[in-house]
């Protein structure tokens, strides 16, 4: 059986939706961060998959590498924020972190 890019896009879409729901539904900031990672990885997957249909260059794959680097940076910053949030509130629940309200 030939695996077409449609299948990859399908898997990526499912991953993206899982990530999105996870981000919207969960209140634990760490879990939300992980959800974001899932969504980003879904995007990475589509980039790599579409790159297969374009053998003349590797923009998609290179883009994926850049995204991985950006993710790493994002996680570093995100975890630092979570850490300081925990120090401040003794909790990592995102609905309790509403100091920026109004």
């Amino acid at each position, binding site marked *: 059986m030939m695996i077409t890019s449609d299948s990859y896009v399908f898997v990526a879409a499912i991953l993206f939706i899982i990530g999105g729901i996870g981000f919207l539904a969960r*209140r634990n900031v760490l879990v*939300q961060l992980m959800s974001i990672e899932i969504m980003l990885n879904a995007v990475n997957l589509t980039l790599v998959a579409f790159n297969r249909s374009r053998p003349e260059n590797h923009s998609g794959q290179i883009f994926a590498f850049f995204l991985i680097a950006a993710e790493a940076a994002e996680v570093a910053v995100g975890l630092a924020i979570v850490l300081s949030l925990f120090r401040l509130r003794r909790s990592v629940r*995102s*609905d309790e*972190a*509403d*100091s*920026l309200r109004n």
Partner: protein
Amino acid sequence: MIETLLRIFPQGDFSLIAVILGMPLLGAIVNGVFGARIGKPGVRFMALAAIGISFFACVLSFLALDKVVGAGGGEHAELVHGKLAWTAWEWMSATTFGGASIPIQFRFSIDALSGIMMLVVTGVGFLIHLYATSYMEKDPGFARFFAYLNLFVFSMLVLILGDNLPVLFVGWEGVGLCSYLLIGFWFEAEKNAAAGKKAFIANRIGDFGLILAMALLVYYTGSLDWDGIQQHAGELITKTNAQGKLDTVSIWPVGGGSYGLVFGWINLSFLNKTLAITGATAVGLCLLLGCTGKSAQLPLYVWLPDAMAGPTPVSALIHAATMVTAGVYLVCRLSFVFAMSPFVMACVGGIGALTALLAATIALVQNDIKKVLAYSTVSQLGFMFIGVGAGAFTAGFFHVLTHAFFKACLFLGAGSVIHAMHARIHDDDASQDMRNMGGLKKYLPYTYWTFFVSTLAIAGMPLLSGFFSKDEILYRAYINKTVSPQMDRALKSFGVWEQPDWFGPVLYTVGVIAATMTAFYMFRCFLLTFHGDFRGWTIGRPSQISNPHHDDGGHGHHHEDLTTPGRAPHESPWQMTVPLLVLATFAALVGYLNPGLLGHKIHFLGNALDHWLHPVFRDTIEGAGRMVALRAEHLVHGAKVPAEISHEALEHVEHMEPILMLGGISAFAIGVGIAYWMYVKEKGAPAKALAAKFPGVHRFLLNKWYVDELYDEVVLSSVDALADTAAAADRTIVDGILARLTALIASFTGTIFRAFQTGVVHTYSAIMVVGLAALGVFFFRPHAEATVRKLGADYQLTAAPGMGYKYRWDLDGKGFDEKQLLSSTDIQHKVTLEEGKTKTVRLEVENAFGRRGIREFVLTRAESTKTIEVGKNAQ
């Protein structure tokens, strides 16, 4: 040796000027920035070295200039108008109305006129600096004072040596700034700070005139440097506009409008008379405004008497010897512009005469020694203006020179007196009041003698400097008459103002009256200060004067017995007396540079200054079409406009000189005689009696003709009213409506948006998801849009772009050609329409998702009006 100097510094690139200018600037920077660190001896050394080296460089330059103008060729050799010039850098370039570009360079030059002026500024400046090192010794602002004073000398040198008007203007503003800073040097006292502001504002009004003059000169002559202006000065009168008419400055009607209205029997048609002046008159009047500001003439003289709030060396240097003569210097510098217009010359002379008279009357009754000298300065400046206004530029400048010495000496003498008085009294006002002085001859011998010599000089004692310069001015004022070059050219199309024949004699008479008053008030000042008995034994300390009820007891200071004699006043240290001696020597002798009649009679004296400055003013006085003709020509021949001055007329004029000289001599004799009688013979009784007899007049003069009050009422109150109106408008319109309305909108919007600002991440992400979904829907739907542009008879339709869009057009309204495939490049089409016709055009769009949309455009071309209607979407 001078040849070597000229080899090192060639005439066209005389960079020694950089030393002349640079040393005072260096002094200002070092004293201003490091003053506290280098201490008082350091500041003193820096200030004196800066001006001293500058003076030395000036002397060298002057010797080189002497070589350049060829003065070595004997007494009667004709001098050339040479200059030593140095271009520092290209500053900027101005563009004329014609589009030509005028380079404005930071260029300095020394010629016969500026050479003398720079020697005076650095020479007198050095003496006053030396004096000030002692006078200001106890002042906490010692370094600041010398920083300002050095900066002043630098600015003054820029003013003098600048080779064009913009550079002169830089110096002009620089001296104004230094004047402001030094008048308000003791700014803790409100009145000193106010005096500084007054000087600054009065000068600002004058500067406005100077800037206007620059613009007009660019327009008329197309240049701003001295040589260029002189070369094209004729254009000020003869410039024609595009219609071939004379290019004059229209004064009335304002804005070229028509004001001649007739309301029934009120006929205002005389308002339609036009009044236009030549460019020369306009430029001259603007320059004159600038000069009245800087040189304290009517109507802007009011700042100078108040400027005495500054330390006395400042009064001597800035407000007597150098800065205030800048206006006279400018008139001399641009003599060829002024002489083009008889009206302006008459204004210069007239303003000078009125100022000389007004200031002299005020000086008659003042009690503050510095105020007397201040009004005397205003009055003497008036004399200089009479001189230059009569076309006797050398005489006017000669008075600048002599005045610099005797007035600097007088001010420094007054400073010495105040220094001595202040040691006893410790009150600024009381220590300057002549009523507290008297008999100081005994205690201050050097000051006494130098003050005496200078008083004689300013009063016009024959054979002293003031006599020669003042007489030269009065004599020239009587005989000279400026004749418009327009008359020669018979430009009948333009009404020419002619100086009336009585004008010269009136200037002379006013001058003699003012000179009589000068002799009187100067001797009054001198006698009150130095003769009689010392009246200052029993004057109160400041605690008694300013705060009589504040004596809370317990302090020895307050309980001093002020009725017993205190310490006697003492002579000043050598740093103060040496400058006095030098200046007094010059005040006595500098007149022999140009002893006028005496120089003609006694050959070895000669008239060196006249000879020296002759090349500078030659073109102005003798040049074709811009002469200052001798009135005698009219007296002898009855000719209205003398074509040239005959030998006969010259002889006649020379015979008049001794007769006219009697006026000056009698002015001195009468003035001094009255003063002696009043204050020595009768011990001041007649003065008191006179004041008691005419209390109104006395009060009127004591209050300076109420000019300050008049300005308060007229100018200040109208400015205040304007400010109040503006403030009211600001409060109601800007603050009340604009600001509050804006704030209201902002806060209302904020209230709405605040509701969305929950601070909860989930809300934000949910909104984001909704937004993304909406964006997805937008992209999913096809959007058949096109812009329609009318190009003449054609309508150009351009389809809006979109991701992966393909287009198909139905241009004739008959439906789409179903066989035609949609194309991504088929974006633009032209449709031609005849007038009054209507056409329907359809656009079909397919997006990346394969969805299609159609839109219909109804194009209508109207008969005459060009409107198009864009139809409804027919998707």
